[in-house]
């Protein structure tokens, strides 16, 4: 198993927060034990994508630099799995 560390950024700005981002901040509780230590979870005061209509809709999250619009916990977990090569 490779030791790649995946960085996950969740937006906690107003728009993301009211559109469901509040749930995403609890992502840490949903990370399977096998991935512990391979993820770096971070919040952002505002990623800024909410002001740009072309990026999709809030809430936003970023997994290893890849933007996920209308993010949900299963969606972020799926993306993390993809990045870790562990689906």
């Amino acid at each position: 198993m490779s030791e790649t560390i995946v960085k996950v950024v969740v937006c906690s700005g107003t728009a993301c927060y009211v559109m469901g981002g509040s749930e995403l901040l609890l992502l840490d509780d949903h990370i399977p034990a096998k991935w512990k230590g391979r993820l770096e979870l971070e919040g952002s005061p505002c990623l800024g994508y909410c002001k740009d209509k072309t990026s999709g809709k809030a809430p936003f999250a970023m997994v290893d630099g890849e933007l996920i619009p209308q993010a949900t916990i299963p969606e972020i977990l799926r993306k993390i799995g993809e990045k870790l090569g562990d689906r």
Partner: protein
Amino acid sequence: MNGDIFIEVGHYCCKKYGQGAEGDVFLSRKTDDGRIISVLSDGLGSGIKAGVLATLTATMAAKFVAEDMPPRKAARIIMKTLPVCKERGISYATFTLVDIDSQSQVKIIEYDNPAYLLFRQAAEPVLLEPLKRDLVVRRPAGSRRDHGGTATALLSQAVMHYSEFQATAGDRLVFFSDGVAQSGMGSRAYPLGWGIPRIQAHVMNLIQETPDISARKLAQAIVKEAESHDAYHAKDDITCAVIYFRKPRRLLLMTGPSIDPERDSEMAQIFRDFTGAKVLCGGTTASIISRELGRPIKVNLKNIDPSIPPASTMEGADLVTEGIITLGKVAELLEFPATADRYRVNPATQLTELLLNSDCIEFVVGTKINEAHQDPTMPVELEIRRNIIKRIAGLLEEKYLKEIQIRFI
């Protein structure tokens, strides 16, 4: 604010156990010429009747002093006006009247309340006792008829004490109703009540433990201690007022980006150069300041309160919060402070606490409308920033007597 001294007036009261109303009244007002007039009055007895006596006394005293009436004359009018108690045949309410002018010159008239305490902040706090002069007023002779119908003249003169001093930064004036001094009376621990010497020592302790304790916290701590002597079944109304002369505590609250992105650096400069507590509200605002000053921001993902977006930390900022949701909650907490939400720990309660602990609050408000909030799928509670700030500023100014400045950028 008088000169470079801010005068914080705080009080706390607890009514006699079982009574529906306070018999002690404290009121404080600011006159147009910059004076602060505070009165603590304790009406005869307790409950509504005492409350009426005390309110009359306090209101009249404050009014007369505000209009520069000589204290002797004011006292005479008050005593003539108060209704006579049916049982005791006298009209009576004690008072402590404090008049502070714009240069922090303090004049105090006391009538039958326990003597005030004045603490001066030196290397160690010291207790001062200004000289007091007696003011004697002839009372309209009250009389009481006994069962046989014979009238007995009652107290015919009243002695008030007058003193004055120049307050300096760090001074604390503590005054209270006899409910504080007599708390615990009859108990094993304090057969004769708490008593002035012990109160002095207690307050001295509190000040030494927390040298910057606010007036409202100190008043509350004294009343709570007194209440505990009566096993929380207060035997009299217990009221304490504290006037704290201190260097003003400043706070900067910056929220919202400017409509003109070229002013971002100006905002960052205001933020950097401000002396006092600094708060950023809003993700975009925080990102701008972080970018301009090159200071990273980190969102605190630990101990999240699900009702309010999490706070972040940034070097040089005392608090970094989300914008509209948090500010909306702050406005609510300021308007209705007696809700259980006040005791949760989240960015909104932290911000409320910071605001209440400051004297001069400067708002720097960006006027840019957040287009992300204009989406019709967004909840309607997302108010316009300017309105919510106006609401908060209004509450702080009128309800909490803070000095407010709002700058739109």
